[in-house]
């Protein structure tokens, strides 16, 4: 798992991941690249990350993937990420394509629902919590 301040160096990351895995006898390599869309007048998105829990969440997923003979990688930005650059890359690798095709979907969806990362719109330099697009984590409301 790799965290970066600011937008991700997408090409460097993908090329490195690929070159490190070409000889691992994986038949399928599926990256997911998240790109900041220009909408709602934002100039960037900004992210807070709570790393200790994110690392645990990722390690659990890596164990699950390894049990299926697959492997996961992930990179995310901290702080401001301008539109048309990337804040998030994950990738799955497996010997056969079906595991990888199912895993990339499940991994990205659970990431969206349970990774401890908070998103803000950056408008005129001001950070605005994107609550309308945020999802209560599993177990939310326990102290209500």
């Amino acid at each position, binding site marked *: 798992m790799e965290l970066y301040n600011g937008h991700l160096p997408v090409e460097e990351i993908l090329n490195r991941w690929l070159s490190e895995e070409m000889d691992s006898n994986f038949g399928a390599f599926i990256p997911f690249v998240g790109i900041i869309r220009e909408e709602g007048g934002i100039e960037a998105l900004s992210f807070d990350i709570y790393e200790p829990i994110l690392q645990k969440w990722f390690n659990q997923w890596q164990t699950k993937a390894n049990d299926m003979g697959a492997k996961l990688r992930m990179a995310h930005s901290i702080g401001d990420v301008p539109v048309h650059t990337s804040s998030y890359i994950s990738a799955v690798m497996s010997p056969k394509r079906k595991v990888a095709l199912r895993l990339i979907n499940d991994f990205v969806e659970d990431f969206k629902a349970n990774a401890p*990362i908070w998103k803000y719109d950056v408008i005129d330099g001001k950070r605005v919590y994107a609550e309308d697009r*945020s999802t209560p984590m599993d177990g939310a409301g326990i102290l209500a």
Partner: protein
Amino acid sequence: MVTVEFLGPIGRDNMEVEADSLEMLSKILSKDEEIAKWLPKCAVAVNDTMVSDKNMKLKDGDKVSILPPVCGG
């Protein structure tokens, strides 16, 4: 005494609280009007491990993290 930290957008400083269970902590936090609004949509971790058992006991030195709705990616 447990430490309560408010993550992401809540924007409140850490609090030191006398509470020996999540239930007791809930009562204390609910008295703060602003925090009370966040609680229904926040998940909780104790010492960096997500928890889901309301009756969980707390001991001195525990760290309780309050996690608002998330949106990675």
